[in-house]
């Protein structure tokens, strides 16, 4: 089990190669191979969870091999409490998404091969502890994502795909330059060589040269922040998200919202904050303010949408704002809340997008105003939607509530008046969140059938077994971790506390 992280990362890649080698006619076989290749990481994720030692902030399951010794680039995979949650989430969501894409019948081989390549990239990002390796995985995700949106997407897929690609790439090239600045201005005290190792890069005593200048550090932090903020997405870099989500096929929307957005906040916690703690402290209020803007603005935008998928997309913008508020708080509770929200939102938004996919597959549109009274026709489906909506609006007893509450507590605990004002403003988001969810629910499922668009009701059939199979594990997780979040909190707690203490130790002068 010493190579468990490499296995989880690269088994999907092997699966992708196998799929490419299959003959074109064997579509079902390709899907089965994909399911197996995504199943292995999920299976291993179980052992990972069992084997993960809580109560320590140290890196676990470490794999370290020299990759390019002449530049001291290492293949360094490891996880701590922050990574492990994302790895578990990735394994679960990816596996479910294979089944959510079972009905794909155009270019099946290509679709599943790209999907598995995407999973490799996502796993790699969460496991890489070498900045260079992290960057490679980070970029590797872009290509499959571009093709998955661009080929299998909706009507405006080309526009959406290139917009996603361009936004992310602009962010990541800035990260590349910052990475090099760190490489050349940090010396590993043990070997005397420059290094990309994230654990050494955060060592403030190993620095020299340009990194001693406050201006360089500030610009580096801003560049890193923009790189990650585009992914989150933080207002005003969020405009790619509604386009990409709306045009992407269902399973890809799930991956986008469930995992890719979290990479932004993960990157802040893994790289931006520990590498530049003093600048993080300086910019904390700014991050909190952006978080509140995200919460309120995202919710208002969601309320204005008539396209159900776009509404869900904007609700993601709103919910990721809680993560930022928690991060900006600079308290342990806030960081915990951010992490918990990443996990909870991953589960809930996956359910939401799956539900949107179910109705879209049947009537081929998503206009809220063209529905009405669906509850009487498809009661089981309605049940799932109500469950997902309530989870999303933060009903107590579900994981979203815990996360949001922790973010608020964390922000309040910061103690300064500005944070208290921010917290008060942010609670407005809960109200707005409830409003747009319930309003959509009412317009689509309750009341009478829409009189104008009656022909569309002929196609509405009840949710099928495969779709239920995708939704149920997520629903169970939402409730279990909503009632009893301790297992998740235990996993992350030590690493989060260590991170908070580390960042706190370097206040801005």
């Amino acid at each position, binding site marked *: 089990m010493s190579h468990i992280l490499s296995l989880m990362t690269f088994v999907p890649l092997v699966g992708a190669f196998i799929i490419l080698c299959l003959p074109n006619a064997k579509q079902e076989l390709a899907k089965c191979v994909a399911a197996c290749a995504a199943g292995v990481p999920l299976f291993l994720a179980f052992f990972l969870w069992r084997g993960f030692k809580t109560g320590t902030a140290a890196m676990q399951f470490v794999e370290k091999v020299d990759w390019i010794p*002449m530049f001291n680039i290492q293949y360094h995979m490891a996880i701590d409490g922050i990574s492990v949650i994302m790895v578990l989430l990735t394994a679960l969501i990816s596996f479910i998404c294979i089944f959510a894409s079972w009905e794909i019948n155009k270019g099946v081989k290509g679709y599943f091969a790209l999907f598995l390549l995407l999973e490799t990239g996502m796993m790699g990002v969460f496991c890489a502890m070498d900045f260079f390796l992290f960057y490679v995985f980070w970029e590797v995700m*872009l290509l499959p994502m571009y093709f998955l949106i661009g080929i299998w997407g909706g009507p405006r897929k080309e526009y959406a795909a290139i917009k996603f690609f361009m936004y992310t790439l602009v962010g*990541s090239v800035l990260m590349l330059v910052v990475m*090099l600045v760190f490489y050349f201005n940090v010396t590993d005290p043990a070997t005397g060589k420059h290094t990309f190792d994230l654990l050494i890069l955060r060592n403030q005593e190993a620095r020299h040269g340009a990194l001693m200048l406050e201006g360089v550090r500030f610009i580096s932090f801003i560049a890193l922040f923009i790189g990650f903020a585009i992914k989150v997405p933080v207002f005003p870099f969020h405009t790619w998200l509604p386009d990409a989500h709306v045009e992407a096929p269902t399973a890809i929307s799930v991956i986008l919202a469930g995992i890719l957005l979290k990479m932004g906040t993960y990157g802040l916690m893994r790289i931006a904050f520990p590498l530049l703690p003093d600048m993080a402290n300086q910019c904390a209020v700014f991050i909190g303010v952006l978080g509140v803007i995200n919460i309120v603005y995202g919710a208002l935008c969601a309320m204005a949408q008539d396209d159900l998928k776009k509404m869900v997309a904007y609700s993601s913008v709103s919910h990721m704002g809680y993560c930022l508020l928690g991060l900006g708080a600079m308290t342990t509770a806030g960081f915990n809340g951010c992490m918990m929200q990443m996990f909870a939102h991953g589960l809930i938004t996956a359910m939401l997008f799956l539900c949107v996919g179910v109705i879209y597959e049947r009537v081929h549109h998503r206009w809220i105003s063209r529905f009405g009274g669906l509850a009487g026709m498809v009661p089981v489906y309605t049940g799932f939607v109500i469950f997902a909506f309530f989870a999303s609006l933060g009903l107590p007893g579900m994981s979203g509530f815990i996360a949001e509450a922790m973010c608020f507590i964390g922000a309040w605990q910061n103690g300064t008046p500005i944070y208290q004002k921010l917290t008060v403003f942010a609670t407005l988001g809960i109200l707005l969140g409830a409003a747009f969810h319930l309003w959509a629910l009412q317009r689509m499922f309750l009341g009478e059938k829409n009189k104008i668009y009656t022909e569309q009701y002929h196609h509405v059939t009840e949710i099928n077994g495969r779709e239920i199979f995708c939704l149920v594990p997520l629903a169970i997780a939402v409730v279990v971790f909503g009632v009893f979040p301790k297992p998740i909190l235990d996993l992350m707690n030590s690493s989060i506390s260590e991170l908070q203490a580390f960042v706190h130790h370097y206040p801005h002068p």
Partner: protein
Amino acid sequence: MQLGVLENLSFMTPEVLLTVTQGAVVALEVWGPKYKKGLVARLAATGLGATLLMVILTYFELEAKQRTRVFLFADSFVVDPFSMFFKLVAAVSAFLVAMFASKVRKIEAQGEGEFYSLLLVTTLGVFLMSGVTDLVGLVVAIETLSIPSYVLSGFYKRDRGSSEASLKYVLFGATASGSMVLGMSYLYGLAGTTSFQGISEAMASGRADVLSTSLMLGLVMIGFGFKISAAPFHMWTPDVYEGSPTAVTAYLSTASKAGGFAVLIRFFYSILARPESAANPMGPWLPVGDPSWTSLVAVIAVITMTIGNLAAYRQTNVKRLLAYSSIAHAGYILLGFVTLSGLGIMSMLFYIAVYVFMNLGAFLSVIAVTEAGGGEELSDFRGLGWRSPFLGMAMAAFLFSLTGLPPLAGFIGKFYLFAALVNQGWIWLAVIAALNSAVSLYYYVKVVKTMYLEGIPRHQGDVVPLRIGTHFSILLFICLVPTIVFGIYWQPLQRLAEWSVGVSAPVEAPKATAGK
């Protein structure tokens, strides 16, 4: 100890082999059997293959002797790892181009003998350019490359575009060469010698004032800038690249450009710079005299890549698009030149090696499409990813590698260039270059989008396949392998590039190393 002519030639086996092959090609064309088409192509390809082998062998021989530097012909020509690196690049490029051209019907119809003999002479030109250490030799070498190139670009005699390309190339080329020679004549006047070593000493002595030095170097830079198509001497590139036969374009954009960079680096780094410590050429280099030329080159690099990337946006012809992209890449490579460090040279060498494979691959894909009945317009690439899956995938890989996305070789190349910049404190330049490469994604993806995302030409519901044949597939695969492998494990190439860094002539006893 001066070596005799024959002893000199023994170090130049690759060059000799090229010349012999060229003679044989001409002889075969004139006296050989007329009915056997393709014989000349095979002979030329075999000769180039043998040359490539000789280059590799000489390389190993040099490595065994540890950085040996052999000066030939009264110190006007040097055989060192640096020159061998460029010979390797040129030989690979020429070999692949020759292999590809052998299946191009239009070249066969026009007369293979002329094409391959000219191609061999241009390759000889690049070989000479990589090793010259003397102004006169430099002019001869550059013209050996240039004059056959003018003819090659106009090779399709009845084609107006091709003839126009040739004419443009000649006019621009002659002007550039003229300015360069004028600049060199001033240099000779200053130093009283034509050897780089002597000029360097004259520069160091402080005899030249800033104004005249700038004038001289500026004039010389026009010649080099033309060869590597750096702004503002890039105007010829789109027209010539679009009009020339695609095989020639592929060659001009790789081997010819590499030759330009070889003389550029050799000239400036042996005249105006010196390693801080002779033992560690990978470290920073010190400028000899006034260091402001690096800022000037930095500005040129920025303008070059920005112009290339912005102009490529609106192109609808794939060859023209790739022409602008190659201008942008000249800008990227110049970044390493600016840094005045061994790491900078190494990153340039690394990038040039990687660039040859990915850029050749992209142009070769265009040839393959054209020969399979398609064309060079973007619309001819519609649905290519489905019509010919391998070609589509390979072309996409080349384009993404040119963009600089991991895990492809182009990313590693850019990574080292940016690393060299950051290491020497040129962070603003690195940021501009990084943003430029992000912007370049847009037009590369335009091609990929056409291949994969736009309507697929169908015939009665089925995708119309486009068959490119095994010959082209194998050659594309040869380009594809390094493009991917050097993106995942590039240590060998880095070692090679690092070892080839030493450019400037050693100060102490240059001839002593030519031992037997």
